[in-house]
Every structure is written in C-alpha cells, then in structure tokens.
C-alpha cells in the first residue's frame, strides 16, 4: 500500500473467551465492546466515520450476519461494510478505507459465537457439495492433513510442534490465567496426527479495533498509537488437492507485500515480537518459515529465540493454541500486536516494543493469509 496518510490503531479491545452464561446477548456484548474500544481510544461514537465488520453466517446462524451488528456497533446512518471471508479482512479494508482519503476513522470488529450445534458441521458446509462434502472435511481435518504433509516434508516437525505447543500454552496461562491452563494433556488422536488437547475447543470471542488517520490522531492528540507500516494479504485456492500443504505460498506473497511497505529487509531481526495464527503448532512452524523468521533447517536450533524470554517472543498471548475463538483468531493476533506496541496489552506486555509483526490466517489449512507490521513510530511511503 502506497499509503497517502499514516494510519494508526488507537484503540483495541480483545475478548478472547466470553463465558456463555446467557447474561448478555451478542448484540449487547458488541455494544459494550464498542464503548470499551472508544474509551481506550479517547473517542466517542460521534467520531465514528465508518465501520467494517466480519462474521460467519454459519457460526452466527443467520444469513447476512452484519445486519444484526449494525446498530450495536454504531452503524445506523453510517457507512458499514462486511468482509465475511475473514475477520482480519475487516482490518485490511478498514485501513484501506482510511488510506483512500474517504474516511479519517474506521471501527473494525469480528466475533465468533459457539451456539451452533456443531462448528465442525458448519465448516463442512464450505466444502464442494458434489465431491468433498460427504468427507469429514472440517477445518480440523484440513489442519491435520497439513500437519501430515509437513511431517513428511520436514521429518521431526511433530517433535518441534510438541515443544511449541507447551511454550504457547505456558504463555497463554501467563497472559490469561483465568482462561488457560499451562498443562498440555494430549488424549486420543482426533485427526491424525492431532490428538485431543492440541487444538483447544472453540470458545466465544470478539475483538473490536479503532483505526484513524494521522491527521485525525494529531488533531485529537490521541495516543498511544500503533502505526501500520506494512500490510499484505493473499489467498490460496480452496481445494486442498490443488495446494502444496507443506508450504505457504500465499503467506510468502503477503509477507513480501507487508515487508516491502514497511522497509523490512531482514525479518529475522526486524521485530521485537510477533503473533502468529496457529490453530496447530505445525501451522506455527510453517508461518515461521514463510514469514522469513526461521527456515525449516533452522527450526530446531532457533525455537528458543521465539520463547517468552527470547530475542523475539512469538505468541506471548498464547496464540490460538491456548484460546480458540475460531472466526476472530486472526484479527485478535493483529489486536494483540497493536496493544503490545501501544503498551496496553496487560500481563503479557513486553517492555519497549517498537515494532511488532502480526500474522493472521483463516480458512482450511490457512487458505487466507494476512501480514501486518505495526510500529510505535510509523514509516510513511511516498504518495
């Protein structure tokens, strides 16, 4: 993006696991999160110029799930769009809408309920109705096929995956002690080689972020700000048979876009921390490689660098391997990095974060890939 203005994240509220106690409806929770986000940013609803939301009709049990969210998020009499392809795509479009010069602020939101009788069945509806739907091809199965492919291409990946899972779960227990247990108890295989306990059960979650242009931020004296200095997104095809699952070419492409904009030439040393969308630890390994953080030949020797006390911690939040609000896990990764850069992430804050890397992935076996570079001081590229 040859941004004509710098764009900053000025507010972000993450609810990675909401208790299903029936006290509040999703509409009420979204409205509550809107006001928490505005308070975080130091703004009011009058400052909302546009809104981009993302939700999944099958998980929500509605057709056109944006409709319900319009009023709770301030959409009435405003310009509100939705990107149901992925939660993180709401962030991409929100940033683009400010970069276009048409808006100075954008609210971005995604949510993921767990009221569907079976999320796996809802996911199977995305399979081709003629050839694949009768297969038990939910997203966990796709992730397992990807894990098998990686284990075949990089023998020993499973052992590293176990290490990553333990580290991530410990990070999650530190970041969200009331929600995550540090222990990893693996049970029987569910989708080989994935066992019970590896991929956390889906939970209800939501995330709301506020973006603003540089002139708006300066005019209103907002801060702290996480500036978007690079953003990339790309997709692979849907059919798993058309893909090389032990690689992530769309993530390669997205990273090239983001790094090019941010002026990152050596991603291995460029960031203070990263958040990776890792439904399985195998995806974590694939992302490390495609993001240019560590090639597969380096995984075994360099994983310690990405631990909580390492040079560049990855997933201080615990990642998806700790908390799995399915549809909004990608946007949560971006919000986690934004709040690290803003110094407002909470218990798992790393001191002095100047530049962070967020990776978001959605769809079967990481079909959609998004990379965002966020900085305490943004880089402006020529108009």
């Amino acid at each position, binding site marked *: 993006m040859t941004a004509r203005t710098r764009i900053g994240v000025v507010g972000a509220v993450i609810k990675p696991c909401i208790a299903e106690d029936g006290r509040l409806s999703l509409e009420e929770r979204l409205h509550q999160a809107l006001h928490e986000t505005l308070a975080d940013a130091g703004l009011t609803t009058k400052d909302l110029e546009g809104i981009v939301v993302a939700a999944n009709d099958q998980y929500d049990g509605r057709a056109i799930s944006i409709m319900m969210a319009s009023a709770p998020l301030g959409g009435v009499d405003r310009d509100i769009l939705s990107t149901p392809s992925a939660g993180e795509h709401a962030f991409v479009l929100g940033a683009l809408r400010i970069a276009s010069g048409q808006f100075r602020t954008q609210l971005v939101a995604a949510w993921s309920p767990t009221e569907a009788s079976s999320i796996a069945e809802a996911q199977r509806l995305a399979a081709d109705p003629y050839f694949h739907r009768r297969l038990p091809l939910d997203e966990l199965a796709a992730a397992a096929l990807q894990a098998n492919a990686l284990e075949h291409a990089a023998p020993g990946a499973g052992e590293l995956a176990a290490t990553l899972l333990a580290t991530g779960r410990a990070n999650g227990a530190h970041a969200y002690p009331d929600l995550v247990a540090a222990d990893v108890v693996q049970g029987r295989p569910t989708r080989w080689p994935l066992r019970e306990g590896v991929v956390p059960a889906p939970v209800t979650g939501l995330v709301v972020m506020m973006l603003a242009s540089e002139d708006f931020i300066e005019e209103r004296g907002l801060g702290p700000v996480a500036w978007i200095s690079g953003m990339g997104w790309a997709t692979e095809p849907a059919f798993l048979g058309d893909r090389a699952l032990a690689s992530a070419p769309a993530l390669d492409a997205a990273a090239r876009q983001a790094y090019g904009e941010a002026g990152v030439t050596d991603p291995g040393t460029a960031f203070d921390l990263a958040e990776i969308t890792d439904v399985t630890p195998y995806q974590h390994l694939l992302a490390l490689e495609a993001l240019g953080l560590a090639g597969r030949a380096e995984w075994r020797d360099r994983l310690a660098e990405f631990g909580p006390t390492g040079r560049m911690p990855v997933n201080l939040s615990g990642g998806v391997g700790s908390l799995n609000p399915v549809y909004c896990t990608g946007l949560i990764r971006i919000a986690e990095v934004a709040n690290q850069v803003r110094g407002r992430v909470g218990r798992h804050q790393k001191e002095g974060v100047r530049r962070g890397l967020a990776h978001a992935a959605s*769809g079967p076996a990481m079909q959609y890939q998004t990379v965002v570079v966020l900085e305490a001081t943004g880089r402006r590229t020529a108009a």
Partner: protein
Amino acid sequence: MSARVGIIGIGQSNFQARRDDASYPDLVREAVALAMKDAGLGFDEIEAVVYSLSPDAMVGIGNAERLGVDAVGARNKRFLRINTGGATGISSVAAAWTHVAAGACDVVLTAGADKVGECGDSQTVLNKIWDPIYERSLPLGTINMLAMSAVRYMHKYGMTEEDMARVVVKNRRHAARNPHAHLRKETTIDEVMASRMISWPVKLFDCCPQSSGGGAMILASERWIKARGLNAVWITGLAHSSESYYLGDRMGRHVVADHADAHALAASFRKSYAMAGITDPARQIHAAELYAPFSNTEFHSIEAAGLAGLGQSPAMLREGAFALGTNAGAVVNASGGTLCTNAIAVTAMARVAEAALQVRGDAGERQVKGARIAVASGNGGDHQFFGTMVLEA
C-alpha cells in the same frame, strides 16, 4: 481525495432462471472472462480481487468465495469478500475503488455470481436474515417487508396499484432491449393487475425474478489508465449509509427513518453527490440504475436519488418521465433494472455496470441518448444497507 479511479472492464452473463450448464464457479468465471475481454487484460495484470457474494445460503455453500478463488484468478493474490446483502455488488465495486484509491493496487477485479433461480426458494433463505427470536417466526420475507413499505407509501403519498404496475410495464419494455436481462417479455398494466397476489399490494409481476448469472468489473488507477491510453468511466462519487436492523425501529413517533421512504439511501446519495459535485441531480443526471426489486420501491428510490420530490414520482411516471425516450430528466433503469433481473450477489454490481455502459455509450438498444452522468444504487439487508455511486464519462 486521491486521483480518480476508472472502470475499464465490464462483464455480465445473460441472466436466466437456471444455468444447469454451469457450476457456481463456472458462472463467476464466465463474467470474469467477459470483463477481461472487455478490458483487453490478462490475469497477470490483476493485482487484487474483491469477491462479491451475498448470503452463503443462496448458493448452498459456506464461504463459497473460497471455491471462487481460481475462477477469478486470485491464487496468491490479494483477495477478500464483501457481503452487504442485496447491496453486495455495489459495495464490492466500492471496495475495489478503495483498493485503488488507497494506492494499494493499480488494477483490481471485482466479480461474483449467484444461482438464486436454483436455490429452491429465496424467501426461505432470506427469512434467515431476521432475528431468530423475535422476527423470524412471523414469517418475514423481503416481499412482505417491502409490501409493508408499499402500504405505508400509499398511505403517505396516494400511490395506487396501477402506479406500481406502470413501473413494471416501463421496466419490462426496457428489459426487452437488454440482452442480459432475465425477464424480457413486455407486459401491460392489465396483465400486472391480473397477476397472482403475493403480499398485498405486491403481485407476482411487481416482483423481481430469481436469476442465475455472474457479474465482473475491472477498476484501475487514472495513472495506469492514462499510461496505456485506455478509455474509462470514472467513479466520481460513492458512499454507503445504513438504517436500523429491526423494522419496528422504523415506526412510531420518534422514528428516524419512515419505512415508506428510503432515508439512508437518500443520505448515501447526498454524500455521493457532494463528492461528485452534483448540486441539482434532477437536471444533471441522465441515467439512473436504481436497485428496486419490487415495483413500489422504484418510487422511493427515485425520490431518494433526488430525481423527484417525496411522493411525486408516481405522478411523474404517469406523465411519461423516467422512461427511455423521455425528454424530461433522467431515464430510470434503462436496463430493466432489478425488477427484471435479480442474481442477488451481483445485482447491485449490474446497476453500476449498466450505468457505466450508459455513460460509455455502449448500452445498445437501451442507450440513453447523450448520457454523460449516471448514478447507480444498491439496497441490502432488510432495506438496511444502501450504496450509491456517480459515474461520468
């Protein structure tokens, strides 16, 4: 505001009730191929794709955009999907505009398709847009939702069922000249009045068909267009605005939006006109492609677009306004409009495409003579999301 963004490629299927010969991705590809041919481009020149798809349930595939990735040539490229219900098509063009205006890309494709004619019953699907606890069991559908708007409009402005039939007659006459339209048979007021009652006062002929087909458009930056010496239609104004979700919020003493009118559509048009520098739309606009799936909704759309005062459009239509050949103001839905073709995911894109063809002078037998400025609109949700656009040669 940044440099201009132009439309350089347009592709539309010849919409039909069924397309048994083509799968859902096939339909998307059909429209993409037409747009690529129109623009004279290859896939290597497409930098990003905005996928236009309204409710998944209409095609019976969850996140069906995933199956369309190869159909639009998006592998390893920027890709995202838009869904604002019936407004999705114009929202997708707007999102493609945003990609270019933001400087992210020079050339963006937006495309989609729908198989409404093969979904079983679109009203059963569309009932699921409403709140599952309070409204879904009523049973609401988009027909009775907008029949209530017709009743309210009749009450406020004196519209008759014959006035509604007059819209159908006009649009069918227009659609007969449009090879892409689904319903191309001309009709009469008597035939409309004699057609089966669906939800009073909306009769069968007052309703749009359930159509199958695809749509695609290619947008590019002014710099890229000029460097290649291409012709383009320029998007000079665009906006969206929304109403409330619950229909009950559009009734009562303290209502913001009256269900007779199209409050948020008017707000969106005002924003688009301000951006485009349009100060007197009734005089400045030559062609309008307004999303009106039921005959009565064309009236409040015309008024929201500023082409007539509130409640005045039925009388103007009686006097011959808004029809091809009129010498008094804009022609409305020279394509036949949504009333004659409704493949929901791309219907509002077709409004933009048809408006663009008008100002490009490529609308064939449905061409509005001398059209230089055209507008398009899209409505989605429960008459909730509205997108508008101004296009100029």
